[in-house]
């Protein structure tokens, strides 16, 4: 029953978000129907577009899983952006400086990026466990430290050929893009990351539902003191939870900076980290829900450019809709109450 309730809440949030988007399109003097037509067409009209949608969804699956996983332990990892940057920086650094056969290099890069993200998140985890420092503020601080680390490291060691503000191009050997995949999707940004992402969904689902670790993490999330009383090491679980969360965000960084993109820009805190919050909320923190909502947001992301080209609607409408969906997902209790009222009424009639 509660699964239907979650689905109803998520769908209500999506519908209201789209309605609000329609309202803003109308207010800015455009036809909302045309806007949405081109928005979805832009995300789905041919293989290349579908590839781009999946490529956008790849990062969101990882950051969404990262946020959802920490939520399950009662922690709010708002630092997925920073962890993503560190994962991306590590991936870029290895990709640009190490020469190895692709079969060894790619796994090495991916693992190193995950480790970097895990480490970046484990620091706030440690501070939370040992000193009770609130993880929201700590991860935000780590975001900015990551931002400035990238800002100074890229120009100093991996400066681009033409611009100071970006790294050199990742050689094809170290890139997550694969020719056969790019060819199927007619030259889109899609890369091997999508397979890692699908794998991560399954692995996280198994960890959460089928393992002792997952049980302990959820127990800490439900009631930290009860968990402690039951003999579960709370501190260790907090660090583990944020560590795994950070590893997922680090993977997002790898798939974004050496898969979706061809180099790393400085001075940008990737928005995928914050979109991950939306993805996790909309997916009710379940790995499969994260997968579904990532693909939906992926459509919005890859379709907004096309919509902007065909109509006068600014591309920011995509982000606006996502933001409003989060707000309605946060106020989901409204719809939950509505759902309960509806089901009660039906129950009486039946």
């Amino acid at each position: 029953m509660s699964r239907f309730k979650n689905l109803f809440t998520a769908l209500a949030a999506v519908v209201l978000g789209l309605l609000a988007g329609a309202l803003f399109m109308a207010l800015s003097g455009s036809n909302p129907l045309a806007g949405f037509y081109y928005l979805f067409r832009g995300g789905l009209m041919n293989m290349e577009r579908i590839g781009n949608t999946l490529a956008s969804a790849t990062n969101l699956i990882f950051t969404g899983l990262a946020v959802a996983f920490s939520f399950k332990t009662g922690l709010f990892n708002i630092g997925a952006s920073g962890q993503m940057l560190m994962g991306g920086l590590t991936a870029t650094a290895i990709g640009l400086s190490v020469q190895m056969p692709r079969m060894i290099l790619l796994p090495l890069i991916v693992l190193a990026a995950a480790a970097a993200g895990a480490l970046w998140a484990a620091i706030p985890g440690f501070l939370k466990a040992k000193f009770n420092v609130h993880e929201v503020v700590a991860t935000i601080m780590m975001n900015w430290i990551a931002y400035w680390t990238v800002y100074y490291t890229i120009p100093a060691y991996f400066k681009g050929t033409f611009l100071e503000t970006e790294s050199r191009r990742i050689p094809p050997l170290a890139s997550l893009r694969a020719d056969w995949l790019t060819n199927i999707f007619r030259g889109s940004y899609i890369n091997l990351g999508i397979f890692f992402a699908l794998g991560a969904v399954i692995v996280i689902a198994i960890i959460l539902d089928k393992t002792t670790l997952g049980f302990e993490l959820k127990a800490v999330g439900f009631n930290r003191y009860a968990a402690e009383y039951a003999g579960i090491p709370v501190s260790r679980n907090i660090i583990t939870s944020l560590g795994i969360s950070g590893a997922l965000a680090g993977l997002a960084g790898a798939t974004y900076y050496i898969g979706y993109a061809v180099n790393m820009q400085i001075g940008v805190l990737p928005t995928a980290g914050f979109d991950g919050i939306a993805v996790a909320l909309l997916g009710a923190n379940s790995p499969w829900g994260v997968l579904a909502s990532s693909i939906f947001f992926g459509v919005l992301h890859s379709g907004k450019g096309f919509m902007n080209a065909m109509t006068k609607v600014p591309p920011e409408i995509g982000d606006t809709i996502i933001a409003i969906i989060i707000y309605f997902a946060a106020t989901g209790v409204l719809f939950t109450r509505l759902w309960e009222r509806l089901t009660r009424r039906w129950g009486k009639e039946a």
Partner: protein
Amino acid sequence: MQTLALIFPYAIAFTIPLLAASLGGLFSERSGVVNIGLEGLMVSGSFTCAVVASRMETVLGPGNPGALWMGLGAAVVVGALFSLLHAFASISLKANQVISGTAINMIAGSLTVFLARTMTGSGNVRIVLGFIPADIPVLSAIPILGPLLFTKTYATTWLMALILAVSWFVIYKTPFGLRLRACGEHPQTADAAGINVYRIRYIAVMLSGALAGLAGGIILVTYSGEFNGSVAGLGFLALAALIFGQWKPLGILGATAFFGFAATIANVSQVIPQFSRIPGLLLKAFPYVVTLIALVLFSKSSQAPRAAGEPYDQGKR
């Protein structure tokens, strides 16, 4: 000394918006509502101020103080109204306050740029001329203090000094302040004493929205002059300053001043020989690292309002 006199006006200009936003956070958290949406509220204030001030400048002339004050006033109003979204979600619907605040940040970040693009074609809104820093007569002639505090000051700086004093008075010396603090410490008891917890929290969140909106406006009319869709994480820094300052007005003044100076030193380090030898990364990351260290030191004996972050439910006692 000369270096100090050079840094001070910039550092103060940078501190003031941070102080405004952080004071806003203080009102909200002291009433028991965590407002992580300060960043977004600042963005909305900055956007509103840019739109109103730039329109009024075309009527009244570039840099006209009237136009700029109208922009600031509009920023305050829009900030307060926008924060109602957060208040409704977190007080009336008892939603997760951190998530609702994050939604505020994301809505502000995308919607303002959307509107800016609809209005101007680009995502930016620019005012022609902001406030011009001026020396305070007589006071600026005082040795040492004069050049540091009373030269090249903005009118908004003195407004914030006044707001800080009034805030301190309101929080500690008025019935409203007592009720506000009671709602943040133990809302059940406050309710039993006849205080309308929901009403106090609504007022507090709107005050935080108003002050954060003002903060965004001040950034625009003093040192930035252009709205570009973000306030570069200052809202989050204000939140850190709130914790650093241990939820006390004067503590916040100290914390924001610290951030103001740290950021200014990082920004001007290239031109000042004493600092140019320090790697840029260390200077830029310094405020954030120090915040983490401060959090480690303070979190054990944290003075956080006890009920901050918890929705108040009358049925739960």
